[in-house]
């Protein structure tokens, strides 16, 4: 029944080594680090083929095929190009990129360098959120070490390829994790999303073709090239090859970061990786995909973590945040918290997100205060659907995911809190 299997030393994309410190350049190289870069410099075409064949998809949330993006970059004739690593990890409950940057910086830098070579970019930025000072420090130090070792900078490993990387610190906006807002932020503009098309690969940073990838996506690349796409595809499923870093939190025994092959069910993630529930209380709901993800009841947890199957079930893998709630937790409280979060983070550019969140926030405040009416619940659903359908960017489109899914699975919690809920009135009468 179980698709879960322990990852042995070899069958891993990530090797975090000793979790107390950062893997040094020499340690990384001793375990095969920078072999992939040598291979990619020797045969870039082959390297790109491997990435395409591996079926690597973006790990930031949108799951766009990484190889296809690289190929689209190559189709552009513009000489000046950029690579940007999105390390703005702002999705609540997600801590995978921080872990990579704090512990295996060279795996990220190697992946970044390979991607830059394939994309034809000689300049790049690592956009790290300002809440990650240690990661900024570690990446900065690692860039300097890699440059000193000839693994970055001019003529990497004596080749004709060069890459100059700079760190750019975010300023605290969640929305700057959205790729076009991130680019605007680097340009010194307001961190607001841009109209697409043109996409960043056509007109990105300062109007130049720009490859922008998430930290985890880039960190997958060295293993794919060094060990081959065939090996990579032994992990995960046909639809979603490889592994996903899962940030597991909430009411489980062993909270933490796990590398989980695609195809593993969410129940297995909780039971096998997380060691099951922390207390004696039963599992009530799981939030998958962070604040912009969905809230699902235990019955949904046998869904394998795989893009296709999850999409069918309306589950968003997103950044890979899994937050487990036991029966003591309030769904309304959880959703209330998320709505407040999005109200704070919405940029206000488009009508559905700005005005939708204004109304949804008022209603959810009333719901949690027990002052809402059933009509409010109808409006809540209508406005949230409008946000999802019509918002400018992913923030507004996904802001209502937890709300809509919780209304689907836990509607009675909403309705019971309404002043005009019939059952509740009679129940209260009996109790009093």
């Amino acid at each position, binding site marked *: 029944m179980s698709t879960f299997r322990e990852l042995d030393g070899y069958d891993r994309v990530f090797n975090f080594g000793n979790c107390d410190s950062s893997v040094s350049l020499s340690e990384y190289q001793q375990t095969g680090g920078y072999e992939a870069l040598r291979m990619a410099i020797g045969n870039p075409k082959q390297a790109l083929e491997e990435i395409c064949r591996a079926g690597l998809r973006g790990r930031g949330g949108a799951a766009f095929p990484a190889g296809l993006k690289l190929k689209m970059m190559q189709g552009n004739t513009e000489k000046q190009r950029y690579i940007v690593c999105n390390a703005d990890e702002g999705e609540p409950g997600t801590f995978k990129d921080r872990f990579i940057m704090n512990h295996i910086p060279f795996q990220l830098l190697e992946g970044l360098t390979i991607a830059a070579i394939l994309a034809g970019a000689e300049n790049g930025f690592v956009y790290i959120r300002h809440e990650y000072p240690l990661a900024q420090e570690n990446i900065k130090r690692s860039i300097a070490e890699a440059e000193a070792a000839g693994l970055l900078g001019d003529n990497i490993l004596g080749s004709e390829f060069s890459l100059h990387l700079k760190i750019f610190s975010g300023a605290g906006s969640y929305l700057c994790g959205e790729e076009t807002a991130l680019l605007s932020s680097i340009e010194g503009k307001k961190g607001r999303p841009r109209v697409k098309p043109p996409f960043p690969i056509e007109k990105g940073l300062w109007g130049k073709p720009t490859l922008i990838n998430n930290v985890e996506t880039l960190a997958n690349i060295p293993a794919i090239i060094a060990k081959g796409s065939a090996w990579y595809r032994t992990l995960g499923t046909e639809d979603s090859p490889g592994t996903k870093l899962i940030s597991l939190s909430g009411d489980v025994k062993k909270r933490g970061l796990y590398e989980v092959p695609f195809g593993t069910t969410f129940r297995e993630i909780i039971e096998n990786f997380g060691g099951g529930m922390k207390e004696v209380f039963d599992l009530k709901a799981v939030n998958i995909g962070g604040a912009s993800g969905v809230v699902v009841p235990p019955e949904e947890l046998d869904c394998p973590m795989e893009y296709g199957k999850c999409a069918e079930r309306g589950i968003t893998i997103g950044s890979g945040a899994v937050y487990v709630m036991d029966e003591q937790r309030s769904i309304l409280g959880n959703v209330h918290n998320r709505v407040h979060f999005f109200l704070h983070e919405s940029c*206000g550019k*488009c009508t559905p997100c700005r*005005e939708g969140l204004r109304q949804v926030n008022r209603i959810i405040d009333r719901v949690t205060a027990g002052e809402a009416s059933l009509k409010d619940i109808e409006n809540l659903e209508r406005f949230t659907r409008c946000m999802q359908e019509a918002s400018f960017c992913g923030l507004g489109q996904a802001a209502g995911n937890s709300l809509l899914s919780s209304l689907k699975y836990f509607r009675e919690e909403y309705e019971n809190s309404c002043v005009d809920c019939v059952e509740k009135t009679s129940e209260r009468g009996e109790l009093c």
Partner: protein
Amino acid sequence: MLKTIDIHINGETLCVPENITILEAAKMHGIKIPTLCHFPDQRVKANCRVCVVEVEGNRNLVASCSTPVREGMKVRTNSARVRETVQTILELIFANHPQECLTCIRNANCELRQLAAEHGIREIKTDMSTPLLPLDNSTPSIVRDPNKCIKCGRCAEVCHQVQTTGILYSHYRGINGAITPEYGKTLAEVACVLCGQCAAVCPVGAIHEKDDTAAVWAALENPNKHVVVQVAPAVRVSIAEEMGQAPGTIAVGKLVTALRRLGFNKVFDTDFTADLTILEEGNELLQRLKNGGTLPMITSCSPGWIKFIEHNYPEQLAHLSTCKSPQQMFGALAKTYYAEKSGIDPKDIVVVSIMPCTAKKYECTRPEMKSSGYQDVDYVLTTREFGRMLRQSGVDFKALADGEFDNPLGISTGAGAIFCATGGVMEAALRTVYEVVTGKELAKLEFESVRGLEGIKEATVDLDGLPVKVAVAHGLANARKVMDKIQAGEADYAFVEVMCCPGGCIGGGGQPYVTKRETRMARMDAIYQVDENMPLRKSHDNPAVQQLYKDFLKEPLGEKSHHLLHTHYQKRGL
């Protein structure tokens, strides 16, 4: 040849050019998609989202204004899903919009109200709230009501892209988002030039001209006041449009009759002082050319442009002609020359201007503009306010008989009329300067090279062997380009015309809604038609102007002219 593709909208197969948006494709085939932030001639913003449509294969709806068509695309613009979403967006806007439609200045032409009517919004099913932000009425020209702002961004777009003044932009985020001057300052505290282009593109009542109709009504009702009115050139080709006729409808005679009906004691014409401006400015140019004065000389009739150069190029003010604008020359003469001639005490004269412009409202309040001993021009009404007064007084504009301007300040030439189109002042000046310098009569009056909507027009005019290089810029983005060249010492022009608004005054911030490229073209064509219809087409041929010099001013650039018709400028900086 244009490549075309087939797409399907609402089940119909349509052949459309590639590389256009769904919105454009739909429009080409008579399918209306609602819009709010979309504005002709502006970049795509895709903020308001009321143009969303269903595209097969897409999980969510897409904004038709920003989504390009592709071969075989299946679009639905009128499904229940689309209709419900658009209605909800409108409801969401209304839920946080002041419920003042009945008393709003945009009541009759608000794009949001129009959409609500079209989409059958009958009930706002959620909590209504009204923001309580302070009104910005700090300037004599423009009023900003941030409570009515729907954050479509049209004003900011025109302020940044067309005018490069960069006064209005989006501040803060989320529900606190606002489109305001920097740090929430008022318009009076920043380098706003009051051109009113923001008001001209605002779909709702969030930015509009300061309405001065009440003060004008009061003056007209006051039996102790002699109220005279002057009408700017541009108004004769736009008031009919304001009253519901097609853009470019000419209405000189009806305009005069309408003003008489409102009760003005005398109906005069700014074209008269436009002609006068040519004589003063033309002579100033010749003097500068002769005496080695600062060149290029730049025109000074556009008050938004004057404020712009004072803020942005304070070191270049010597380039400006010292001539007042025709409006202000008129005011100064009305309360001196006309007062003397008609035997009316200037303190009892009220001068009202009908202008296509919001900056003119500010210009008349400048402290320098009191050379008659009184405020030379008392009230300025925009074309839109003038239209409002006509409606209030029950004037059936289309049915009016033609009237004639009063003497003497109502006599003008075609050269004065074309002042309102970009290149017009230049053309009028060249008609006069050529004949003054060469002593010969011009064979062809039309200077085609300075006409049209191109942003910067350059020409070299042969003044009988003396080549004079001139340039014409309209819209402040273009003016900035020319000024940068002048500031860098890279411009070899002798004479430059600058108009603040795109198209010149015919595209002014006080003109009828909606001013887009085609509207500008229509109004421009109309004003050149007016010029052609005039018996006199050169300013120096204006007999009333000749009489004015003979009886009163004596000579161009003379002492009286210096006192009444010329001015100075202020270094304002940013």
